C-alpha cells in the first residue's frame, strides 16, 4: 500500500483525489445522489441534462471570471455584459443573413470591446478592478435602459435559436459549446505561456512585471476574454429564453464568482484552475434546483441560497493562512 502510494503514478492519483476540483466534483455527486433519493425525478437523465444545460451559462460566464480572478482581479460587470449581449443581438438581427452568424459575431466583438475597456481602465488608468467593473456595470445598466427601455426584445436568429434548443445526438447544443470552451480554456490556462503569465501576475504582480511579463497586454487580454465569454453566455441565454430583457444577466454575477471560489480558485489570485469552476457551476445550479423543489417563500429561498453557499464555502473555499 505504502509502496503504491510512493510510486509516481500513485502519487499523481493521490494528488488528484485530494485536490479542490475533485472535492467539488465529489460534493456534486453526493448532492445528486442524496437528492435523487429524496425526490423522485431529480435523478432522471432528462432532469440532470437540464441542470447541466443551465450550468453551461454559469460555466461560460465563470470561464472569463476564472481568468480574471487568477490574474488577481475581479469582474463585477459580467452580469451587465450578459444583458448587453442578450439585448443587442435581437436589435442587430435584420434577417439579411440566413445563418444568423454575422450578428452573433458582431455582438461577441462588442462584448469583447467592453471587456477590453475594463482592461484599459485597470491596466492603464490603474483604477481598482472592483471600481472599474462596478462603474462599467452602472454605465451599461443606464445605457441599456435608454436603448431597450423596459420591454423585452425577441430574437429571430436561426443560429441563436439552434444554440438554445437543438440537441444533436441527445446532448444540448449549449452543453456542447460549454465543452468546447472548457477544452480551449483549460489548454490556454495550463499549457501556454499566456496561461503561465496569468498565474505569475496573480501571485505577485510586481515580480511578474520585473521578470518580463507584459502586464498591460496580459491584463487587457484577461478582461477581454471575460467580456467575450460573458457575451457568449448572453447569446446562449437568449437562445434558451427566446427573449432578452434588462436584468436577464443579473443572476450570473454572484453565480460566476461563487462558481470560481467553490471550485477552489483563490479570490486573491495566482492559484486555481477552471477544472474546479466547472463542477462549481453545476453545484450552483443544483442548489438552485433543490431550493425550487422546497417550494418556500422568496425570503426563505434567498436565505437558503445564501446559507448553502456560505456552508459550501466553509467546506471548500477557505483561504490558506498567508502568515
Amino acid at each position, binding site marked *: 500500500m505504502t509502496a503504491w502510494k510512493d510510486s509516481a503514478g500513485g502519487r499523481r492519483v493521490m494528488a488528484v483525489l485530494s485536490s479542490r476540483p475533485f472535492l467539488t466534483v465529489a460534493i456534486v455527486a453526493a448532492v445528486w445522489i442524496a437528492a435523487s433519493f429524496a425526490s423522485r425525478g431529480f435523478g432522471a437523465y432528462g432532469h440532470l441534462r437540464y441542470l447541466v444545460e443551465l450550468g453551461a451559462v454559469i460555466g461560460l460566464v465563470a470561464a472569463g471570471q476564472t481568468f480574471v480572478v487568477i490574474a488577481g482581479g475581479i469582474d463585477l460587470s459580467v452580469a451587465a455584459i450578459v444583458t448587453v449581449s442578450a439585448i443587442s443581438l435581437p436589435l442587430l438581427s435584420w434577417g439579411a443573413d440566413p445563418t444568423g452568424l454575422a450578428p452573433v459575431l458582431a455582438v461577441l466583438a462588442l462584448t469583447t470591446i467592453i471587456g477590453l475597456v475594463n482592461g484599459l481602465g485597470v491596466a492603464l488608468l490603474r483604477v481598482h478592478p*472592483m471600481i472599474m467593473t462596478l*462603474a462599467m456595470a452602472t*454605465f451599461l445598466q443606464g445605457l441599456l435602459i435608454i436603448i431597450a427601455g423596459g420591454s423585452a426584445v425577441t430574437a429571430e436568429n436561426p443560429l441563436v435559436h439552434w444554440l438554445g434548443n437543438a440537441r444533436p445526438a441527445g446532448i444540448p447544443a449549449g452543453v456542447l459549446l460549454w465543452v468546447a470552451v472548457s477544452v480551449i480554456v483549460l489548454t490556454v490556462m495550463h499549457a501556454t505561456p499566456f496561461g503561465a503569465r496569468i498565474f505569475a501576475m496573480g501571485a505577485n504582480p510586481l515580480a511578474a512585471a520585473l521578470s518580463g511579463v507584459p502586464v498591460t497586454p496580459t491584463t487587457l487580454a484577461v478582461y477581454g476574454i471575460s467580456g467575450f465569454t460573458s457575451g457568449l453566455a448572453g447569446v446562449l441565454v437568449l437562445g434558451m429564453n427566446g427573449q432578452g430583457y434588462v436584468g436577464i444577466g443579473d443572476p450570473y454575477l454572484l453565480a460566476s464568482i461563487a462558481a470560481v471560489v467553490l471550485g477552489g480558485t483563490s479570490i486573491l489570485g495566482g492559484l486555481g484552475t477552471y477544472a474546479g469552476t466547472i463542477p462549481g457551476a453545476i453545484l450552483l445550479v443544483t442548489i438552485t434546483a433543490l431550493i425550487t423543489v422546497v417550494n418556500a417563500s422568496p*425570503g426563505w429561498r434567498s436565505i437558503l441560497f445564501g446559507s448553502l453557499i456560505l456552508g459550501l*464555502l466553509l467546506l471548500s473555499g477557505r483561504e490558506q493562512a498567508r502568515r
Partner: protein
Amino acid sequence: MSTVSSARPAGALYWPVQARRNIGVRSLFVVVLAFLIAYGVLFPGLFTASGFAKFTQSWFPLALVAMAQAILMLTGGISLAIGATVSLGAVIAATTMAGPLGVAGGAAAVALTGLGIGAATGFIVVRLRLPAIVVTLAGSFIIGGAALLILPRPGGAIPEWLSDLLAGDTPAAFVLLVAIVLLWKLYLATPLGLSLYAAGENPVGAYRSGVPVDGARVAAYAISGLLSTGAGLFVAAQTGSGDPVIGAAFTLNSIAAAVLGGIGFLGGQGTMRGALAGSLLLSLMISVMFFLGFTPVAQYVAQGLIIIGAVAIPQFRKVQQ
C-alpha cells in the same frame, strides 16, 4: 514625523499630523467646494434653514454607509452586503417602532441587529478565514431574505413625530452626523480604534507587535453593521414606512464614496474625513444632476463615468510624474 522636534509640547503635535493627513484629500475638498457652489447657484434655498435641513437629510444615509464601508476597507475588508443591511434596518424600524416595543425598543432592536450581523460576518471572515467579498455577497442574500421575511412588501409605519424630528424641518441629521464623527474620533483613541489602521496596513507586523488584529477587524465589521442598520432606520423615517429592497443602491454608492474619498482597497490607507467628503461629493452629484434635469437613467451613465474619472485622474497624474 521625525522632523517635528521633540521639544514641543505633546498637544502641538496633533495639528501638524492632522494637516499632513489632509494632503491626500485636499484636491477632493476643492472639488466638493466647487460642487457645493454649483448646487448653491442652482438651488439658492440651500442657505435657508429648511433647505439646509433637506440637504443634510439627503446626504446623511449616504454618509453613514460610506463610513460603514470605509471602516471595513481601512482594515483590509469589504462588504457587498451594505445595501441589504440598510434594507433590514429599515424594515425592522418600520415593523417595531409603531408596535408595543415603542421607538426606544425599536431603535435598540435595529442597533442590536446591526451589531449582531456585523459581528457574525466579521467572525466568519476573520476567524474562519473566508474571503470577505464572497462571504458578504452570500450574506447579502441571507440578510435580504430576512428583510423579505419580516416585510414581504413595502409597509409598516414609523411614528409621525419621529419622522418629523429626523426628516422634517430640523437640523437633526446634521447634529447626528457631527455626533457620529465625534464618536469616531473617540473610537480612534481607544485600543481597538488604534489597532484599526495597524491591522489594515500590516496585519502580520501588527500581530507580532501584540496588536489585537482579529479583535479590531471583528469590531470594525460590527460597527459597520451598526452604521448600516442606522442608515436603514433613517431611510425608513424619511419615507415613513419600510421597504425590503430600499437599500439596494447603497452597496455600490458606499464603495464609490469611500474610494472617491481616497480609501485604499488594501487596508490602512485613507481617512474617514476623506470618505465623508466622498459621500458628500456623490450626494451633491446626484442632486446637481437632478436639478439639471437628467433622467434617472442618464444619471446612472453619468455616475459611472464620473466615478471612473474621479478615481483615474489622480492615479494617471501620479503615473506621469
